[in-house]
């Protein structure tokens, strides 16, 4: 797995702005989190700020977002919106090949 792409902060903002999302949790395996933290130390950014994990594999970009949602709508609706928002953001920023976009609803309400 290659290092986390620096633009994950933007993805955080993209996910947070989706209607129905009320919280964002650090996603992905511990290793990715450690890389994020190291990156944060290098660039003097808060490591906690990058919680959406983006990695670049041979088959394309992988993005994982773990979210909490409000109780107003279904997990399906909100997670699809989050997915689509991430996909749209990727298209707008270089349109890389996408291997997988994972959205995990970890909490409702």
């Amino acid at each position, binding site marked *: 797995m290659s290092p986390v792409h620096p633009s994950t902060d933007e993805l955080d903002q993209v996910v947070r702005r989706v209607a129905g999302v009320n919280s964002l*949790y650090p996603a992905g395996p511990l290793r990715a989190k450690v890389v994020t933290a190291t990156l944060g130390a290098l660039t003097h950014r808060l490591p906690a700020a990058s919680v959406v994990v983006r990695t670049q594999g041979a088959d394309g970009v992988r993005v994982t977002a773990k979210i909490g949602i409000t*109780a107003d709508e*279904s*997990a*399906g609706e909100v*997670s*699809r919106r989050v*997915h689509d928002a991430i*996909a749209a953001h990727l298209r707008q920023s270089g349109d890389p090949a*996408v*291997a*997988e*976009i*994972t*959205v*995990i*609803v*970890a*909490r*409702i*309400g």
Partner: protein
Amino acid sequence: MTELTPADRRFVTFDLDDTDREEAGLNGHTIEQLSDYLDRGGLPADPSIDDSPDCEIALRGLERLRRAQLSLLERDLKRESLRNDSWVASVLENISLEAHAGREIPLAHSSPTARLVVTEGAVRGILRETGDRLENILVGRCVLVGDVSVPGEPITISVDATVFPGQNIPAVAEQLRQAMYVALGKYTELVVAAIDITVSDLYTAPDASAHEQER
């Protein structure tokens, strides 16, 4: 205060190292035996203890020790209970939802590169919330039975619940079942074949569990 009663007499008859001398001073018993006797509430009655003034003095000493032990524990518990709440917050800050996330339950999307899931922990959470919004019932453990990772695969839900006294249990359980179907339909894409509700015991009155904190 003029007469020297056994209660006031000094208790000096035991020895830290010599069991023989201890027994000699306690009518053939040891402090440990007397302590066990006290634990048993003096039952079955043993005349060689009950009728011995030396044992009586020792038993009073043991009772005094026990009272002091209890009041020390009460004092310490009170002190701890009066502390500010910051340690509770700090405990809760350091635990993560991760530990109880459970399995991943798929949510549909038309894109082949999309992987959308809701965690089992989130679904159990919404089932509990549903129960908590109803009156007269508390929802305990919720188990999703079946392979939740296969879309469209029928599963069942097994729920433990406690109903408050004086309620019509079948009616309250049915109300819960309907509310849970609605919640599952709203928040998940699971195909739920059945919701089995086990009313395990009646809700205990506040006194009972508050009592647990004492001893």
